């Protein structure tokens, strides 16, 4: 019996032992604990404090005053989300099981895409291959490709097929309007098809210290070349305020390509890469921890990349897409 009791004692001892050895459990639904945690994480790791021109310390005072013990989770969410939205950044989100916060940067500019107009007047015979919807325009003289989201992976076979289809055209239109971003791994896969030589297109820097100006070294971002099927004629890339994140990154990198022209409206921004984390109450969040820089070291892409040719959609005539028409005109003339 003594042996048995000893074994039971040892099992009981070790089954909870690490809790004694580790730091305390920080799980908490207290509004103040969660506020402090989130504020500190953004303070220590967010990458665009300086560019946004936001006084993060003053924001803490302002929003902490809105907390009170026992406040509802919904109210806490609203306070935290409002605090985060002061950063004017759609890469800054709070995710609770019952709601997700967005800044909605696309609403800060005009809408420049009407899917009905596009489908009814330009894409009647469109093919759908992988993530691309594509068709011939202007009596088969132009190829049109719509890429709706960088979250859809680009497959080499898909690109081979699409670019082969349009190899005899005079130019290509790549429509990235309302493309909210996704994986930046898809950027080089597309751009290397339009590229003749290894090209430095941007730099990235990642925050690496507690001070808001602490960043690691500039890391170059290159676009290589593709050994197989490529397209070397003019390419018009359509952008608007809803072109965000990876699409903004894409737009910035096209500035290094003489055969690529940006047409439409300024992109929404979101050049940095967001990292995710979790609060003591289990909600999650994300915010940018890096910056994308142009070749001169400027980080303006976070606020949007301007088009080479600015054109807006005319909502009084839904039979025409002015941005697309301008792209056609640029290729044919």
């Amino acid at each position: 019996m003594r042996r048995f009791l000893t074994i039971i004692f040892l099992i009981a001892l070790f089954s909870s032992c690490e809790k004694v050895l580790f730091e305390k459990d920080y799980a908490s639904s207290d509004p103040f604990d969660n506020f402090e945690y989130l504020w500190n994480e953004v303070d220590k790791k967010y990458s665009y404090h300086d560019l946004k021109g936001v006084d993060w310390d003053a924001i803490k005072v302002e929003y902490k005053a809105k907390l009170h013990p026992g406040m509802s989770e919904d109210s806490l969410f609203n306070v935290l989300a409002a605090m985060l939205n002061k950063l004017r950044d759609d890469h800054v989100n709070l995710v609770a099981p019952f709601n997700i916060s967005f800044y909605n940067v696309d609403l800060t500019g005009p809408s420049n895409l009407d899917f009905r107009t596009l489908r009814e007047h330009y894409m009647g015979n469109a093919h759908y291959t992988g993530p691309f919807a594509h068709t011939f325009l202007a009596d088969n003289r132009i190829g049109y490709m719509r890429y709706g989201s960088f979250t859809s992976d680009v497959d080499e076979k898909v690109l081979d097929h699409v670019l082969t289809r349009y190899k005899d055209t005079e130019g290509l239109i790549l429509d990235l309007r309302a493309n909210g971003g996704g994986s930046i791994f898809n950027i080089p896969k597309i751009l290397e098809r339009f590229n003749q030589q290894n090209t430095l297109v941007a730099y990235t820097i990642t925050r690496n210290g507690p001070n808001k100006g602490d960043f690691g070294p500039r890391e170059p971002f290159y676009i290589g070349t593709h050994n197989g099927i490529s397209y070397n004629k003019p390419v018009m890339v359509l952008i608007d305020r809803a072109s965000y994140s990876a699409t903004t990154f894409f737009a910035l990198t096209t500035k290094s390509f003489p055969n690529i022209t940006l047409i439409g409206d300024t992109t929404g921004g979101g050049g940095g890469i967001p990292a995710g984390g979790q609060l003591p109450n289990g909600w999650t969040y994300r915010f940018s921890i890096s910056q994308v820089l142009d070749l001169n070291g400027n980080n303006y892409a976070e606020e949007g990349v301007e088009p080479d040719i600015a054109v807006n959609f005319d909502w009084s005539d839904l039979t025409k897409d002015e941005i697309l028409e301008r792209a056609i005109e640029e290729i044919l003339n």
Partner: protein
Amino acid sequence: MALLMSVPFYSNAQAEQTFKPINQKNILVTTSLSFARYRDFATSPLFYEGGGTNLYLGWQTLNDNWELTMGVDFLVNLTLANTPKSDFYEANTFGVYSGLEGSVSYLRNLTPDFNGKYDFKLGGTLIGNQNMRINPALDNSTLGLETIVNLMLSGKVQRDISRREETVSNFLFLTIRNRPVRRTLAFQLDTGVLSFNRRPGYNFFYDGPVDGTNTTMFSYVWDQYSWSMNGWRLRSKLEFTQFSSSGNGRRLAYVWDAMHAPGKHAAYQMGIHRIEYTILINNNR
């Protein structure tokens, strides 16, 4: 385990069995039911907890003077965040922990007395873990990796609880003949002497390696990782082993393994509890 060690209803005794000195080369195959609890401060202040299993393949040279054990262990656990209770809408995030562990352990018998009841062994253990954790709720921080290497001081006390005489048990109308069998009960404690870990940089991942031509996922997360020599690890093992006359055996064990890897910026902590079942295949008959 306690039931296995107790022998009820002795009725008579036969001649005492003499065992040969131990000289075995065992293949070890282990599986377990496990409970893991971990926390990565780089992404969350919460513990993740959940059950899982493992598969261990090892080799052991075992005699009365020393034992050498080496093997590879694959562990997997499904976990849930230990979030505070909510009467509004409770947050639940799940994670998957998987780990590959390699270990080498050498223990010298300090009291090599074949007829003695107790053996006291002392030696060292080298353990290396490569963890990979998936937490889909963490967006681009979904993938968590850490490498943890520990050189440990190992002590083991082993009690010979063999049945050296044949006994006969009577249970209702059944008569059960219990033959002599070699059995041991052992407790091993490994304490980290040198602890190394490879943990993320200041931010959980780093933008730099995504340079347009080098876009592999692992370079994306690995490049800012660095080694630190800090932290601690403790591992204990309570094991009951029974050998057959062929030298083969089976083992039941309770293992507790706890580690703390502070890294340079944010700590990783983990504790695993396992109920293990091991088959020992003797290759030295």
